[in-house]
């Protein structure tokens, strides 16, 4: 009895082998960038399968062992599928991690961008914000390209840069909830109102955080105006040129209008007072004052406001209409108390 050899049933054509070859090559292309050693492994198996196939095809049909060909190509596909599967699982995990980080970082960058609208943000914060936005854009591009590992790193760097404006904002706002500062400001306001009641006259209180200028008469609220501060107005004033609005108890010393001021109408106050000078000297000794910078002067309440933002060099700005209402109701000597908040 003659048993027909298995070789006689081998029906693979060259296009079948082309398909197997292409499958292996696709796997190698996918593995090459991130797993070159796995790509090389598949390449070696492919070479071996090609050799086995070539040898088998060169034999007479009755001598062939198709199972050897099957086995060698089977091994190629098995290893290729296994390595590609491993890579894709790793990528899925990275993608999951990126998506989670990206949501957080997008929010943090958006929040930092919102902080940049606040006064007190300077060149350093603007640079950090720019770097944050660049890194976030990089992260998005890398994610689209499927490089989630580098996308995560870019997103983390964006987070670090976005932290700078956040930290500046936090430092800026911290003092407005400091109980010691609140007590001091409250005490100044109370003393100012007591004086207004005692003297029966006007008094001005500027609430920096609330952007309000309040005119009191005999210790009671008369009118509330919207105020605009220095570009760094929320900070306490340390020296000339810092564009901060000072905090303390002052008085109107000069009233200006017409050609005497470029700001429509102005009320000059007696900054610096003795406490300001004391603070300035201490800061200078501590090296916190730039070389050549004095304590500052010419702090006024003046017109030409209405910009919707803090913009002055430290003065308090009202609209011209509001200055028209305020100006006639104060005199030289009217107390002006400027506080963080109360």
């Amino acid at each position: 009895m003659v048993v027909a050899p298995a070789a006689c049933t081998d029906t693979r054509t060259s296009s079948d082998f082309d398909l197997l070859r292409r499958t292996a090559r696709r796997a190698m292309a996918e593995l090459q960038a991130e797993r070159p050693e796995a790509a090389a492994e598949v390449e070696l198996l492919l070479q071996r399968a090609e050799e086995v196939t070539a040898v088998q095809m060169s034999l007479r049909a009755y001598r062939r062992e198709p199972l050897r060909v099957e086995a060698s190509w089977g091994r190629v596909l098995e290893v290729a599928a296994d390595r590609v599967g491993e890579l894709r699982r790793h990528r899925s995990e990275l993608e999951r991690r990126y998506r989670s980080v990206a949501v957080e970082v997008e929010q943090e960058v958006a929040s930092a961008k919102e902080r940049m609208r606040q006064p007190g943000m300077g060149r350093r914060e603007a640079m950090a914000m720019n770097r944050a936005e660049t890194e976030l854009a990089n992260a998005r591009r890398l994610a689209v390209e499927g490089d989630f590992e580098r996308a995560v790193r870019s997103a983390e760097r964006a987070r670090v840069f976005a932290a700078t404006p956040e930290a500046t904002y936090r430092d800026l706002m911290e003092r407005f909830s400091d109980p010691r500062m609140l007590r001091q400001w409250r005490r100044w306001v109370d003393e100012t109102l007591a004086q207004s009641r005692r003297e029966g006259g006007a008094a001005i209180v500027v609430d920096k955080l609330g952007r309000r200028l309040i005119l009191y008469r005999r210790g009671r609220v008369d009118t509330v105006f919207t105020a605009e501060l220095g570009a760094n107005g929320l900070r306490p004033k340390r020296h000339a040129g810092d564009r901060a609005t000072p905090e303390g108890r002052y008085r109107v010393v000069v009233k200006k209008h017409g050609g005497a001021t470029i700001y429509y109408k102005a009320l000059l106050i007696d900054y610096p007072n003795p406490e300001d000078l004391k603070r300035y000297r201490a800061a200078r000794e501590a090296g916190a004052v730039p070389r050549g910078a004095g304590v500052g002067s010419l702090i006024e309440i003046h017109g030409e406001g209405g910009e919707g933002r803090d913009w002055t060099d430290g003065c308090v700005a009202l609209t011209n209409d509001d200055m028209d209402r305020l100006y006639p109701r104060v005199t030289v000597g009217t107390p002006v108390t400027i506080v963080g908040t109360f």
Partner: protein
Amino acid sequence: MRARSLVVRLLIVTLPLVLVAGCAKPPQVELDKAKAALNTAAEAEAATYAPEAWQAAQDAMNAVNAEMEVQANKFALFRSYKKTKELVVAAETASTEAEQAGRAGKERARQEAQAALDSVRTALTDAQNMLAELEKCRRKPKGFKQDLELLQGNLDGLNASLPEVESAMSGEEFLTAKSLAEQLQQRVDTFAADIAAAKTKINC
């Protein structure tokens, strides 16, 4: 006489066999040349810059290896390396082409990346000059100093992104360098447009 005719008969039978066996040597020298050519193509980064040519070279070398295996599995006297030699020549040619395509592709990528880098450097210098002009404007609206400071900070940030592009160039990652340069260019162009708009707004 009988011995002599026996020797002649033996020679007639064995000589062809000896001749055939003598022709059946693998073309080792040519094979080594072809492998060296494939390595050279790899060093020329053909896989990155000429992937199709690289794949063709790999397939050609695989065909050589396969044919070598076929012949190795035959009885020595029946081996013939004529086809192998043809395949080796084809493999060496494919590798050489892959190497040339790789070098050409890399050079093209280098030139494109360099052009993108030069363009963004010029754009950054122009943006700095525009900002300097803005600073000199006679009309200085409220908050001008603050706005200038923020703009300068923005420009600082853009300038700080340049070293990453330069690092990719010096590391010969030309595709990455080009992509980064183009991305930075977009941001610089937007920044320049903002400054131009600011100048127009204040009639500078």
